């Protein structure tokens, strides 16, 4: 995948988050503070605006632009998490013009590590990690499909949150999709489309 593919991926993700921002916020309403859709939309729209004003020249710069925008425009929990993830991808792609599937797996793994370093959550705590982690495993084995991603997102429903704002609900967090998992699922599905 080259820089063009990356751009198609990220723009498609941004468009879909914008289209679904109310739904995503509603997911957050059930177990959080109802802003995840607005937060993500704000960050991704700012990214679209930034790249419309001055396009990035390289893959690494593309990720950096997205990462910095998420970091400086979103706030909340998702801002620093997605920000750290894309800044990690920027670091990993420095000087690269083409990414193969192995690169992508490595890229995502390091990004996941950055998310975990920042957020200190592990698998099973009903956060975006519950999509990222198993999705990367599947991708390694070439088994990642859109249906599989939906499955991972839905698998957060029966979980009880122990990290993030939803953790304050305790057992009342059970029975709902984790909003960050949903937005991460969208991102991964659009990645699949360009792979």
């Amino acid at each position, binding site marked *: 995948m080259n820089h063009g593919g990356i751009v198609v991926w990220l723009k498609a993700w941004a468009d879909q988050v914008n289209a679904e921002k109310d739904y995503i*916020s509603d997911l957050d*309403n059930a177990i*959080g*503070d*109802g*802003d995840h859709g*607005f*937060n993500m939309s*704000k960050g991704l729209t700012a990214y679209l605006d930034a790249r419309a004003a001055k396009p990035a020249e390289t893959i690494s710069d593309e990720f950096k632009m997205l990462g910095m925008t998420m*970091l*400086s*425009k*979103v*706030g*909340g*929990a*998702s*801002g*620093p*998490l997605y920000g750290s993830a894309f800044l990690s991808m920027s670091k990993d792609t420095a000087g690269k013009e083409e990414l193969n599937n192995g690169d992508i797996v490595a890229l995502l793994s390091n990004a996941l590590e950055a998310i975990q370093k*920042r*957020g200190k959550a592990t698998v099973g*705590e009903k956060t975006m990690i519950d999509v990222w982690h198993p999705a990367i495993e599947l991708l390694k084995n070439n088994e990642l499909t859109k249906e599989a991603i939906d499955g991972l997102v839905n698998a957060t429903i029966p979980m009880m949150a*122990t*990290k*993030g*704002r939803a*953790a*304050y*609900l*305790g057992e*009342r967090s059970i029975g709902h999709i984790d909003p960050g998992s949903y937005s991460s699922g969208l991102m991964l599905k659009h990645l699949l489309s360009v792979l």
Partner: protein
Amino acid sequence: MKKILNRPEDVVEEMISGLVDAHDDVVYRVGDTRVVARKYEGKGKVGLISGGGSGHEPSHAGFVGKGMLSAAVCGDVFTSPTPDQVYEAVKAADKGAGVFMVIKNYTGDVMNFEMAKEMAESMDNIKVETVITNDDIAVENSTWTEGRRGVAGTVLVHKILGALAERGASLEEIKAEAEVLITEMATLGLALTPAIVPQAGKPGFTLADDEIEFGLGIHGEPGYRKSKLRPSAEMAKEFYDKIKPALNLTKEDKVVVLINGMGGTPLMEQYVFTHDVLNLFKHDGIAVAKKLVGDYMTSIEMQGISLTVLRLKNPLWLELLNDEAKTIAW
């Protein structure tokens, strides 16, 4: 949604402008950031900063000034501010003795403030220490690894540490005092009506006409129980009966009580509740050395109230609370 505002997306910008223009004797705005800093310099003293999502007014900008916060960062409504904004606050607050951050225990706040700390330390060599307030005992449970939320008690932390900084304490001394302080306070809140985030345009949760939520957080996060509306005295008793054991209060203790309106609660109701709360302390013979009543840490227009109790383990805390502060809202 029925609110006095212009475009919902401009609400934080315009609110900051209004606040800074109205109180230009006390505060200023740092460049075009969302940082409200004090005009009093406090040269050579530790700078104290705080912040978080907007919607908790007068927290946090209302507590910026001599003897309290050096600067406050205003995030979007109920959304923690970004690291670059917090970083600006650190820079504005540093007067040579380092900066102390008071962070309320929410994932977003903790991450964004910590990133700003890393930025200030690595890029500007500013010494930064932090405390994470977690006074809300509504959601305490050892399996919930996020711990408790930081709520109204945070304002007492601002005042006590702000006075300590003003008296010239070092960053390490403030850190040490802060870590004890946060273990000696407990808060419980309840809501009669929800808050409406302007950009959402609708309430984050709903309550029936005769229903209240016990243990609610300051962003409308659910509490520990829904219940029918009950007399003020019974609600006060429910909170008192949970807070007393949480702090191991005995007749030997002196406490500070903060009764905090959630934004839409008339003072009439706050004082009725105060009457009921103070009766409970009187009954048990626990001395209330200081009482604060009013809107300190709100949830936009939410009707509701919280009760914070601080056990005065260190008598100095009372002195520090009584030290003069020159802020908008203390």
